């Protein structure tokens, strides 16, 4: 009755593609992510209207053929702003996740490899970091260094560090007990080499899934910070800022509150679906349960 | 006499309707007081048989063929009636006492649960019985309090709790699925003894599932050897061990270190075990002919055409006929 604890490598080539399309979650998630990236990239070259151009005479128009998502209180085209905002969201989120991975993963791997007081120290450090609610960290960081998209990235990134440290450590701890690690030791490999060759490749599916989750959280966090005025600053378009701007027009122009919120929700939803899909694809435990 | 306690008559379990057959045409009869050992390697379908009897197969599996308990056709029984049989008249002991017990529930509550459920006893009544049961299985109070949790017990002690749980409602049939596999040999011996005694005292029937020929030979009156979802040989334990008519039974025995003759000429090569070549076929790729033919050392051309049925080897008259599903059963015995 031994359960086969096998982790099959993802199917290569066409097999992988087929696996992706077989999963509804992955398909939708990838589609949304690509859409967001596409909007962000295209907005660099082209938007229906310049996202920062004021056309005050055309302000607060509802959705129409000329302005798909209507115009805001300055007469800017909401659709163009959402396209441009995609870039800001993705940029901030990507950097924040990169910061988290770049620092958190080595920390977690170190803790798992060395154990003992190093592990204790790293874990207390993450405990400490977790004691500060993520948004609070961000509020303080931006209070000190001033509100800007870059500081939002740093602030959200700081919160991501303990998350990745924990996840890496947790996954790696289990792997260090595996016999193949003992075998690698018998082959004379040191902790660093084992971490690099055996541990990280085997935790990367966990990390990929976590990264998509954190990416989604970072999109929300960025929107939240921009919403309270601590994130992206004008003229940089940002979904969160659009929402906070919309708040006073909520009686007269509800579309201003609807579209940026939808953009955030759909992006986050897509990322979460992507994460779920990747988990199903990469994590054999879940796959077996199905 | 009325209907037998448990009767399998061509029991077949398939994945989905008309899908891959996991169990094919199992036939068995078991009466109260009898001990039947079901032996086979992993993937042979022994545990599935137990779950089929308990009516706890995964949803996507379909049962066909006869499966009767005290005359009731189990697959046709409504869930509510089936539920009332489970734990009350058919009880089961699982392999892994670590995970088969609920870690967050005290052992007393877990033992008492069945009695409260089936016999409508109050908590106090059921716990009084649980106390007696624990004493009986060798976990005397106050050292072994009802309030203990599974993690506070050793593996052998947990398995004793499992036995107490299974015996709680005085079942007619006790199914033990690899009850000692996870245990050390010395503990295994004690648990098997305990099981033996419980069956002796209650007169229940025992269906003992194991992969260990030694365990069945010491515990069971009768033996059924399974291979690839089929019973390939069955009969009284002594009979089967005396003859081992099916090449698989023989191979299984010869491959185990018990079968090894350690004598060797000084400096000569060490004697080898008689390994069965190849692997158990995947359920989806079982051949239409004899399932063992590909690995059989005595394979004949007709083995690759015909799927043999269980057939009696002797003239009959014995209480438990010796049957084998082989076109060319072996004749010679196997001396220890």
């Amino acid at each position, binding site marked *: 009755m031994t359960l086969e604890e096998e982790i099959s490598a993802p199917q290569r080539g066409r097999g992988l593609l087929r696996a992706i399309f077989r999963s509804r979650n992955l398909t939708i998630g990838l589609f949304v992510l690509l859409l967001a990236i596409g909007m962000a990239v295209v907005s660099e070259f082209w938007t229906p209207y310049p996202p920062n151009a004021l056309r005050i005479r055309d302000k607060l128009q509802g959705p129409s053929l000329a302005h798909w998502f209507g115009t805001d209180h300055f007469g800017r085209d909401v659709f163009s702003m959402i396209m441009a905002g995609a870039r800001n969201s993705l940029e901030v989120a990507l950097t924040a996740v990169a910061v988290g991975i770049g620092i958190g993963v080595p920390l977690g791997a170190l803790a798992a490899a060395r154990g003992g007081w190093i592990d204790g120290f790293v874990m207390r450090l993450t405990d400490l970091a977790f004691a500060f609610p993520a948004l609070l960290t961000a509020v303080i960081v931006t209070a000190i260094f001033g509100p800007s998209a870059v500081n939002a990235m740093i602030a959200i990134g700081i919160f991501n560090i303990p998350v990745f440290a924990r996840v890496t450590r947790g996954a790696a701890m289990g792997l260090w007990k595996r016999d193949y690690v003992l075998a690698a030791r018998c082959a004379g*490999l040191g902790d660093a080499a084992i971490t690099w060759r055996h541990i990280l490749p085997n935790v990367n599916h966990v990390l990929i899934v976590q990264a998509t989750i954190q990416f989604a959280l970072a999109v929300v966090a960025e929107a939240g910070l921009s919403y309270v005025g601590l994130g992206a600053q004008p003229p940089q378009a940002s979904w969160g800022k659009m929402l906070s701007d919309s708040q006073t027009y909520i009686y007269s122009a509800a579309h201003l509150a609807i579209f940026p919120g939808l953009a955030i929700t759909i992006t986050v939803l897509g990322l979460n679906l992507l994460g779920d899909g990747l988990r199903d694809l990469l994590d054999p435990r879940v796959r077996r349960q199905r | 006499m009325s209907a037998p306690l448990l009767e399998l008559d061509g029991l077949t379990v398939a994945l989905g309707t008309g899908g891959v057959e996991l169990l094919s045409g199992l036939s068995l009869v078991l009466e109260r007081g009898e001990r039947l050992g079901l032996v086979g390697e992993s993937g042979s379908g022994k545990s599935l048989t137990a779950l089929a009897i308990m009516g706890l197969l995964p949803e996507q599996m379909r049962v066909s063929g006869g499966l009767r308990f005290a005359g009731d056709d189990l697959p046709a029984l409504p869930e509510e009636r089936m539920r009332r049989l489970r734990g009350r008249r058919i009880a089961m002991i699982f392999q892994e006492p670590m995970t088969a017990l609920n870690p967050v529930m005290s052992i007393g509550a877990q033992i008492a649960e069945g009695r409260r459920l089936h016999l409508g006893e109050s908590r106090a009544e059921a716990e009084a019985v649980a106390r007696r049961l624990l004493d009986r299985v060798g976990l005397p109070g106050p050292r072994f309090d009802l309030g203990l949790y599974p993690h506070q017990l050793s593996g052998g002690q947990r398995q004793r709790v499992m036995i107490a749980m299974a015996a709680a409602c005085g079942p007619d049939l006790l199914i033990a699925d690899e009850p000692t596999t996870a245990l050390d040999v010395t503990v295994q011996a004690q648990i098997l003894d305990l099981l033996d005694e419980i069956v002796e005292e209650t007169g229940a029937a025992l269906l003992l599932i194991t992969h260990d020929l030694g365990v069945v030979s010491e515990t069971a009156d009768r033996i059924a050897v399974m291979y690839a979802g089929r019973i390939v040989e069955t009969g009284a334990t002594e009979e089967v061990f005396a003859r081992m008519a099916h090449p698989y039974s023989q191979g299984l025995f010869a491959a185990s270190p018990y079968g090894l003759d350690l004598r060797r000429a000084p400096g000569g090569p060490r004697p080898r075990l008689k390994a069965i070549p190849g692997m158990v076929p995947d359920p989806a790729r079982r051949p239409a002919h004899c399932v063992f033919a590909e690995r059989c050392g005595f394979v004949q051309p007709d083995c690759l055409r015909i799927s043999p049925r269980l057939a009696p080897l002797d003239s009959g008259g014995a209480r438990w006929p010796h049957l084998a599903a082989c076109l060319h059963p072996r004749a010679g015995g196997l001396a220890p």
Partner: protein
Amino acid sequence: MRTAAPLLEVRDLVREYPLPRPSLFAPRPVLRAVQGVSLTLPAGSSLGIVGESGCGKSTLARCVMGLERPQEGQVLIDGEDIYALSRAGLRRARVKFQAVFQDPYGSLDPRHDVRRILLEPLASLQPETSRAERESRILEALEAVGLPSAAAGRYPHEFSGGQRQRIAIARALITRPALIVADEPVSALDVSIQAQALNLMMDLQERLGLSYLFISHDLGVVRAITDRVAVMQAGKIVEEGPTQEVFAHPRHAYTRRLIGSAPKPFSGRRRRARAAQEAPA
């Protein structure tokens, strides 16, 4: 036989583990997993260690594999105390001894193909080997364990449990070691597959002159493959001797109980009651 030092010698080995404190200020209790074990394994022979779970046999195995530094005592391989060696020295010494582990699923990195798995000890311990030599050594090792050369390009999950254990053995063989420490190498396998693996190990021993330190809880398996056997109980060796001798005439009460408890075919039901009476729990 050489007159030099035995291939493996373990002297008065002690390995303890600190346990969590029972209360905040209480001293840390210590689990003495191995309490002063001494062993000798001449080249070309096999020594079995039997005992029940928790007796310390796996800890002993890990100490011998150079994976866990003992608090006291020495592990000498070819007369060299491996724990007295420098990092590089230990690395050089590792060529001489390799390991096979119990779990055929956990002992192979699922992300590496067989070639990479086999290459790892070779590249790490014998970096001087040429590319061509490495290739030929891989083929040699695969052939030795009876796997086709095509196996090199495949991943562990594509193999059955028995085949995986062959790969693990091939990995242990690739540096052409003199000693293989095998910790329960066949306990996870079905009987028929287990027999294949044991036979393979016997073949290899005869062909390559290997020595085995063979750890198992399964008396039958130990009996089948070892020349000498040591019985461990609670961190100590309670009996040691030629395998046949120990099994035929166990001297220590624990050994007798162990052998008496092991189920045997043909024994019939009644034997069990006697065995139980002999040694009440």
